[in-house]
């Protein structure tokens, strides 16, 4: 019996490949996605850190922001009305991490913005892509044409052997540096390639026309260094890298300052900057820059072996009855061979080394605030 909900799920252009490779399909953000392949989450995770893994992230949203004037700076300035980042300063062929904010300073979504010379290329989260597109149309239609690039698949190739694997079918790959982005030929296909990812490893994200996605991934998987990796390991890899998962570690109730994402807001958009403010929630966010926020996102390391998962309340000591924060992502870090978590704590208790407790199944487990990334990143800068 096929549940109605299941039959309503969308499939990516790589659905048949996932099944052929033994992918265990689960519903995720309205899509049927592989949570793991026969190797399993643990081996997939470790293989990505040791060699290379290929991920289907075609459920994510890809958008082009084309300036009606033909000047990409007009699209950049328009987008700056919706994000606290310096988009004008993103050079052609470069990419930057950004957030759409709301009037309260909360985060509507996080995204990547690349300057492709005559337009901007955006990658947004699957669960937010419909709202994001509507948001862009509502606010930027005066200056930009907004194209939903729904005919493209998106593939991530991550790990220390990602460069050598991609170099076999894309001569330009080795010369790209972290956060370089732009149109490139991969195999015989017209792709958009960025040197970036969501694992903390060196790697690439490749946008490819949907009809060529399977051929491209098959060529990558012909290399014995490359294994297909499911969403399970994608989550454990990004958690070890200390990267935020939208809807969990960041959402409409967390500001970029509370989320410890100040590094992503350039000086030019802060008070006194060349194009300061002018984005939703600027008053609150820029005030938090100066005076601090009441709470802060932190990395947490457990002292025992028990994973501390999303939703676990945090306490200042082993007996207090009032929770001071909560875990927003947590699990087992295969490369660390230890539990790791991300959560929010009152700012005075957010310093590295501070001891707190999480309540798990009625027990108080000791945790220490730890620096992130938990596993050092290996980006090629």
């Amino acid at each position, binding site marked *: 019996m096929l549940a109605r909900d299941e039959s309503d799920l969308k499939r990516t252009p790589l659905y048949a490949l996932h099944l052929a490779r033994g992918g265990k399909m689960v519903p995720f953000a309205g899509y049927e996605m592989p949570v793991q392949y026969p190797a399993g*989450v643990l081996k997939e995770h470790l293989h990505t850190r040791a060699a290379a893994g290929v991920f289907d992230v075609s459920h994510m949203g890809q958008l082009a922001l084309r300036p009606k004037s033909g000047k990409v700076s007009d699209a950049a300035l328009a987008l700056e009305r919706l994000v606290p980042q310096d988009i004008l300063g993103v050079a052609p062929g470069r990419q930057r991490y950004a957030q759409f904010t709301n009037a309260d300073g909360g985060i509507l979504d996080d995204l990547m913005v690349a300057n492709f010379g005559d337009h901007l290329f955006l990658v947004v989260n699957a669960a937010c892509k419909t709202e994001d597109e509507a948001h862009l149309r509502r606010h930027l239609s005066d200056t930009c044409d907004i194209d939903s690039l729904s005919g493209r698949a998106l593939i991530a190739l991550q790990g220390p052997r990602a460069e050598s694997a991609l170099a076999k079918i894309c001569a330009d790959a080795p010369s790209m540096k972290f956060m370089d982005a732009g149109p490139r030929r991969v195999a015989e296909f017209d792709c958009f390639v960025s040197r970036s990812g969501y694992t903390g490893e060196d790697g690439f994200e490749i946008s490819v026309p949907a009809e060529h996605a399977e051929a491209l991934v098959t060529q990558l998987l012909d290399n014995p260094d490359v294994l297909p990796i499911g969403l399970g*390991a994608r989550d454990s890899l990004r958690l070890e890298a200390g990267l935020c998962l939208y809807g969990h570690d960041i959402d409409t109730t967390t500001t970029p300052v509370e989320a410890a994402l100040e590094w992503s807001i350039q000086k030019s958009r802060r008070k006194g900057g060349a194009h300061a403010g002018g984005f939703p929630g600027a008053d609150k966010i820029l005030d938090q820059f100066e005076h601090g926020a009441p709470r802060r996102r932190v990395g947490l390391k457990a002292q025992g*072996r028990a994973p501390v998962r999303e939703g676990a309340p945090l306490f200042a000591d082993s007996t207090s009855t009032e929770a001071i924060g909560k875990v927003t992502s947590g699990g*087992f870090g295969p490369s660390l061979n230890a539990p790791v978590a991300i959560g929010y704590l009152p700012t005075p208790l957010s310093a590295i080394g501070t001891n707190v407790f999480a309540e798990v199944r009625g027990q108080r487990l000791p945790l220490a605030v730890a620096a992130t990334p938990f596993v050092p990143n290996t980006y090629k800068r």
Partner: protein
Amino acid sequence: MTTLYTSDHEWLSIEGDVATIGITDYAQQQLGDVVFVELPKVGRALKKAEAAAVVESVKAASDVYAPISGEVLEVNDALAAEPALVNSDAAGKAWFFKLKIADKGELGGLMDEAAYKAHTA
């Protein structure tokens, strides 16, 4: 010695009035790589269907329920040091805990091996 099974994929090996309890090979395959096992305290009186242990993979935590009522006589401390035993030897070395059977009548509702095989087929 008799081995019985629950529809929740636990096995019970019965010797006299003691039941040794673990999860089945089918269950460990479904869970994936086990990274942590939490066991009940020795001496705890478990009621049938009560959460008795927790087995965690990289991606999720799953409860293991007491298949029958009884007092915990012994737990398998080897699982704390080597949770991956659950994947490599679910039906043997990776037993979870031993119960002093409170009511042998509760065994009547469990499956034998043939019935369990049919259940997972």
